Structures are given as C-alpha cells and as structure tokens.
C-alpha cells in the first residue's frame, strides 16, 4: 500500500473532480478508513465517464489495494462465528461517523 500522503493526494483530487463533474460530495477521511466506501466512490467515479476520474480511480485502487482478495476464511477452530458484541459492532460500523450517524436510526 502507498503512503498516506500519496493516498490523500489521490483522494483529494477525486473529491474535487467528483464535486465538479457530478456535483457529488464525498468524504475524504471516510474513504481513507473504509475500503468499502472507497470502492463505491471509485465505482461512481468510473460511472461519470470522466477520463481523469477513471485514471485517478485506477490509481487509487492500486494505492489502497482495493482489489485485494477478501481475507481467507477463519480456521475451523475459530469458525464458530463472532460473538454477540462483535456482531453488534459490525452490524452498523458507520454508526458513529458524522455523515452516516443519523441514517436509518437516531440512536
């Protein structure tokens, strides 16, 4: 994975172009920490048809390793499933994120 400064440089340019080209606001900080969100933004960037966004999206895929395969399944001994706490945490990981906090639920 590339360094933070390279990644933030790409994210910043994508953010500006997305706003300019499709009037869509993205969250740079959240893209940096959430690969699912970053993948979705890249998908939207490609969908705009803008060549510069397409190039930046491709570079971001490499820089953040967005195409890396999903982690292998846990060994049999650990395959009993996550605990209740872990399931609660992963049920709504964006619950405390400023832009996602009040989507679908107040509490």
């Amino acid at each position, binding site marked *: 994975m590339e360094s933070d400064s390279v990644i933030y440089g790409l994210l910043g340019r994508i953010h500006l172009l997305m706003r300019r080209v499709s009037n869509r606001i993205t969250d740079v900080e959240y893209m940096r920490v959430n690969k699912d969100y970053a993948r979705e933004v890249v998908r939207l960037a490609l969908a705009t048809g803008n060549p510069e966004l397409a190039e930046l999206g491709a570079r971001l895929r490499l820089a953040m390793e967005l195409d890396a395969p999903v982690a292998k399944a846990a060994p049999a001994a650990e395959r009993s499933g996550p605990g209740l706490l872990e399931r*609660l945490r992963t049920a709504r990981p964006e619950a405390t994120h400023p832009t996602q906090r009040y989507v*679908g639920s*107040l509490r």
Partner: protein
Amino acid sequence: MPGSRCSGSVRVAPALCLGGLFLPVAVLADGGAVAHADSGHTAWMLVATALVLLMTLPGLALFYGGMVRRKNVLATMTQTIAIAAVVTLTWCAVGYSLAMRPGSAFVGGLDRLFLDGLSLDSLSGGVPESVFAMFQLSFAIITTALVPGAFAERMKFPAVLLFAALWSVLVYAPVAHWVWAPDGWLALLGALDYAGGTVVHVNAGVAGLVCALYVGPRNGFGRQPMTPYNLALTLTGAALLWVGWFGFNAGSGLAADARAGMAMLATQLAAATAAVAWMGAEWLVRGRPSALGLVSGAVGGLVAVTPASGFVTPTSTLLIGALAGVGCYLGATVLKRALRCDDALDAFGIHGIGGMIGALLTGWLASPAIGGLRGDTLVQLAGICATLIYSGGMTLIVLMVIDRLVGLRVGERTESDGLDLSEHGEAIA
C-alpha cells in the same frame, strides 16, 4: 394498603384497591355523615397531577421536538400540545366514563358522559373524584401523545387530531378499564400494573409500530441522514419527563404514604440504573456514550419501572433498570433495523419494549411486603398479548378510517418542504 381508607356505610361503587387505583366510592361515612376527602392525599394528588401533565407539556413536546429535523420542529411540538387539548375534550365527553366507571369487564359505563354527576362530594378513594378524573386525564394525554413519535415528520395535521380523538376513546379507554377498573377482566385475572406499563407504554408502543408500518417510512429513510434539530431540547424534555415521572408513579396509589415514597424511590433507582446500563452498552458497542443514549436509557428505565413501582423492593428495581437499559438499547437499534420500520423517534423501541420488560418483571419480582400481592408472570404475559392484539388491531382500523376520511400522509413535496411551513405556515429562525 391504601384500601383501608375506602370504608364507608354507603358505597355507590365497589371499592377494590388494585394496582393502586380506585373507583369512585363512598359518599357517606359511617353514621351517615358526609365523608370528606383527605386533605393530605388530595394535596399530593394535585401536585402529582401537575407533574404528570408537565411530562407532556412541555416535557414530551421538547423531547420529541429536539429529535426531528429543523423543518418539522414546530409541527411536532404543535402535535403534542394539540393532542393534549383534543384528548382533554374526548376524556371529558366519554373517555373517563368508559375507562374508569363501573361497567362490563371490557369497558366502563356511560354514567359520567360529559362528566355528568361529578360533584364536589364525589370521592375516589381518599381524594375528590375531580382530582382523580384529572389525574387519569393526564395519563390519557401522555399515552396518546407518545404515539406520534413513531410517525413523526410525515402525517397530516388533521389526521393527527382525528387519530388522537379516536384512539384515546377506542383504544386507550378500554385498555385502561381492563387493567385499572375493579371489574376489568385483566384486573380480575390478577394482572399487576401499578402506573401503566401495559396501559400506557405497551399500548402506545404497539400503536406506534402499527402507525409506522401503515404510514410508511419517510422519504429518504435509510439513505439520507436525518439529523436531529437540537438534542439540547431533547435532554431538557427528558429531564422534565424524569422529574414528572415521580407524579406518574408515586401518585398512582392516590395517597401520600409510605408506598408512594417507595414508588418514588423505585422510579429514581430504575431511571438511574437504566441510564448507566444504556450508556455502558453503547460505550461497549459504539466506542462512545451519546447524550441521546443516556437520556433514552433513563426513559427506558422509567418506562419499565412504571408497572412495578408500587410492588417491588429497591433491589428488584435495580435489576429492572439494568435489564430495561440494555433491552431498550437493543430495541431501538438492533430490533429497529431487523423490523426495517421507520419508527422515527423509537416509540416502540423504548416504550413498547420497556413496557413489556417491566410488565413481565413485575410478575416475577412483585413482593407482598411492598404491595401486598404476588405477581404471576403468565398473567402478565396474557395482559401484554391482549394489549398487543387489541391495540394493534384497533389502531389499524382507526388508521384505515382516517385514511378514508382525510388521508394520513402529506404529499412528497410537503414532506420535502417540511411540515412547519406547509402545515402551519410558520418556521423557526
């Protein structure tokens, strides 16, 4: 037991003390002299009534008003205040008579239509019947006013007014009669509900859930953030609810006595325990405790201790608070997502779930040393199920009728502009 005050040589109605409530009783005392209200009890009940009304005006109005989006704050608070006015009229016209007067096992009689016959001499236990009717009215008001939390930000104002009028008479009054009137079938079965866990909270919670499902989600629900206008208003409202709840629970024995003190203590203990429990659960799951979570936990604890407050020991209250705090947290988060229902302000998640937890635990934890009665969890469960079925079914019918008459839901444009401007022609700065 406060029932000892019910003695008299002439009784116009049975004087069974159950769940801490009385029907109107003796007018003449032994020897033929006119019985007078106990001034101490009456003074406390006047204060308790004002406290319960304070829970709605302005407690609930602020609590709900702070949680909706900026464009719907006035409309939401207006709904609460309008409901208080409408339910006052329906209660006077027919609600009080249907809920609290002797009748059948399912509904009261019609001898107090428009409060006819209620005079200075009418007594209810140790207090004037006027105070009793007013105290019970404050319960009818807050129960009805809780429901719009589920359909906030999307219902037409005329529909809200009609809903309040019909629901308070057709749903609230019969359920109150089942549980609190001595001839009510749940009372005869032995169901315990000191201050309204089933009558108020399960009833309002399930009605809210049905409303949310029938009316449908707000536009953009689940896709767009719906940021609350000002949670400081909500915190202020929650504080008023907390303090007002002392009148709600400690007043439900209609007496200023040791049991009222125990109910007040139970109320405070449960609220505090549940607030800490919700905060702890949220901290553990989300990594930080929220202000809204803290007060939601307190309200959840208050809800759950409502049916139990005059029946359980302080130690049991701590357990009720802890379970209610975690249970309501899961109800307003995990269960809400599972139901995929836009219960906007979590009327079901907190009042429905908290009410059910409290009602069941009352059956398990009721101590004869406090309330003179043992509970039965199966009877409590029967009370919950009956309320779920009746309240859910009747609420659906009421909604269908209103939908035919005036329509329930505002148009897409109106919803987008906000109810403040489109429904009331006003806006906050």
